[in-house]
């Protein structure tokens, strides 16, 4: 019973907060540039507008283009169950494995890349090829990061990781601080942000993520945008709740849940500001210079394991 309530609460919370976090980062970037920026709630209006429109398909596209948005949102929504944002449920078999979590996200990415290729446009193909190349290079890094976290906390289960860090004193392990840098790089890469990709660009030749969804309109585009926003929330949630889990509810009480939701919002606000500033302070890197960034994530994660072994 408590698990069903968890599913409901977590899913609704993720759906509600994800566009807001997108808007927050946009706002921070706008302010850093001395602009007023779009209203915080603009993304909700955008999604509502897109949902009212019709889908338009290229005559060259196959069924892949039609099913990819649904598969995408399904995989991402399933992955969202693995990351408790406000309430840690009792362990349930099959839910929470961090490796499974990663590959659910990869499945979503896989179908997005297929959809990019499907319509046969040069830009979609370019986006898919770049996204897959970047994925291939960052993947060993991601695995090592996850392995390091699992090694430090001695569990593969994400809710258990959160429960462990919540129960222990602040920074129960300094190595977690080290690994958080790697996690941050993974977050930036997986959410297609500067210096890896530029979410605000209109230059079709430089796009990665945007190029793959260039052919989409209407409700399909809304689903793609939404799953991208959810993915970002999940990765942010992972980083926040491993490092600063304070406020996470362990029991189902309305007051506790409310406080947990509020706490998560405040913490994600801080992280959004950091992401926004980070994006503002650097230019996009050369495509072939990116492995250097990924190597940093890899090296820090590796160092975490070594330090953990020695201590």
């Amino acid at each position: 019973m408590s698990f069903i309530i968890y599913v409901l609460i977590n899913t609704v919370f993720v759906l509600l907060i994800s566009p807001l976090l997108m808007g927050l980062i946009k706002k921070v970037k706008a302010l850093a540039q001395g602009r007023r920026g779009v209203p915080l709630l603009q993304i909700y209006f955008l999604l509502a507008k897109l949902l009212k429109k019709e889908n338009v398909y290229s005559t060259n596209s196959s069924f892949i283009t039609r099913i990819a948005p649904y598969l995408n949102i399904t995989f991402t929504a399933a992955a969202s169950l693995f990351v408790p944002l406000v309430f840690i449920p009792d362990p349930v078999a099959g839910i929470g494995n961090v490796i499974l979590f990663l590959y659910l996200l990869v499945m979503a990415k896989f179908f997005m890349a297929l959809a990019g290729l499907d319509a046969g446009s040069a830009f979609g193909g370019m986006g898919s090829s770049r996204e897959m190349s970047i994925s291939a290079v960052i993947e060993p890094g991601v695995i090592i990061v996850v392995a390091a976290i699992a090694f430090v906390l001695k569990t593969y289960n994400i809710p258990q990781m959160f429960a462990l860090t919540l129960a222990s004193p602040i920074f129960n392990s300094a190595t977690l601080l080290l690994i958080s840098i790697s996690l941050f790089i993974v977050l930036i890469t997986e959410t297609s942000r500067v210096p890896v990709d530029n979410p605000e660009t209109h230059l079709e030749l430089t796009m990665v993520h945007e190029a793959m969804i260039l052919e989409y309109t209407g409700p399909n585009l809304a689903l793609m945008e939404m799953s991208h926003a959810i993915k970002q929330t999940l990765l942010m949630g992972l980083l926040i709740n491993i490092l600063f889990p304070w406020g996470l509810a362990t029991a189902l009480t309305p007051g506790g849940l409310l406080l947990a939701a509020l706490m998560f919002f405040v913490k994600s606000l801080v992280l959004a500001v950091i992401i926004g500033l980070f994006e503002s302070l650097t230019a996009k890197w050369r495509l072939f210079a990116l492995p250097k960034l990924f190597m940093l994530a890899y090296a820090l994660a590796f160092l975490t394991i070594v330090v953990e072994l020695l201590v």
Partner: protein
Amino acid sequence: MKKQKTDSENRNIAGICLSLFEDKTKKEAYLPVSEKELTDLFHQLDKKEIGLISLFGAENFNGAPGLTLFYVLEKKDSPNIVLLEHKLASGEIASLVSRFPAAGWFEREVQDGFGITFLNAFDTRRLFLHEVYPDGFHPMLKSFRNTGCFSGRESGKLPGAPYKFKRFEGEGVYEIPVGPVHAGIIEPGHFRFSVIGETVLGLEIRMFYKHRGIEKLAEGKSPADCVAVAEAISGDESMSNAAAFCMAVERISALAVPNRAWQLRTIMLELERIYSHLGDLAGMMVDVAYPVGAVNFFNLREEILRHNKNFSGSRFLKGILCPGGLKKDVPAPALTALAAYLPEFTRRFQKAVDLVYHSPSAIDRMETTGIINEKLIRPLNITGPAARASGAIIDTRVDHPYGLYPSLNIHIVTGAKGDVLSRFNVKAEEIRNSAAMIQAILPEIKDGPVRTDAVIKDGYALTMVEAARGQSVHWVYIKDGVISRYKVRTASFCNWQAIEHAVIGNIVPDFPLINKSLNLSYAGTDL
């Protein structure tokens, strides 16, 4: 001299041509040549010294029926311009493209406009006439009347043959067609990339989606009316192009422009350079996804545009020039406001540039990206900041001085590497120099008339200005008090071909940055 005239077949044409460059009395010299002499001349001239900067035709020139071609030559360290005048006997002439690659687009432009065949040309595809125009349609001929919209489909004739792009073949080579409609709000142009992975193997640029028939539109207009046509050539070069046009009319009619008018014109020409370069610097920062670096340039550009408005009534400095000077005087408060603003501008501009120089990620993107080899400058006739960033010491304000410039101390800014960073540096330095130049002129301005009333005479003249993007060449031919032929060759027309070379070996995602570092005008290419 006498012998040369009587025995024109055997005269030493190269010697005559070179002596015209040394002639201190004339800025522009016209040398009638036969076809054989033309070919001989181009084989004898030193390609490093002499460049072909424009080629155009004019029908019924000086009462002679048929088409006359003008080959415009420029020589290093000579302020003179020599125009080789060749009266065409037939519809064919030998191509010069193997000798002067810049002639490629020039010849194709003449071919489309007048229906002339250039023999032995590498590339005889149409240039500005796209497929919708029927075969045999040549809009620059006097027999074609400029009336309303023209559509090849309506004419009932079949459109011309489809355009064939260069093809690169091999394992793993694929094409990326980009444009003419782009994701951003920019002008239309088609870019055909051939790539292996991300590396660009070849790029072919197809322009001319903006053809407005500007040169045709000018024909039959009075010089005063034609200023607006010159201003419409390219939106952000309106001042330069209008100034070059007015200078041509002034030279034909021997009008003396009052000093005050030239002082104000020079200020506006430099303001145009400043706002144009500011837009380029901002654009480069946007294209490397560093908007925090771009925003300062955008703000300064906006402030300059507002000063333009005070100055001329137009943010893009339109509607103030006329042959003989200025249509109206610049209000005194605009001058004092600009004088008060410039020191602050320079200080804030320096801070904005420093911010970029302190951003290693932005510098890394620009360094070694999109190198224009210095060897290409003469053959392709690359001009302006693009050429200076590759080390060429050329600037029309110094090489062919006009207006107030001979009295001003102009420092030609050059770079060494020819990459995007060099172009960024050159443009930044030019903004500082232009601001200093304006500050030097402002206190010198005395009250006085701003216009000599124009009495238009018939004749022809070639003038050049250094627009923000480089040398802009204008040739005006007035007959019976109206324009009979107006030919414009903007810097963009030549510099597009530099991009085709600059991107080779770079990766596709760096192309927008390379393109923005030159920031050429699409409209200015396609008149």
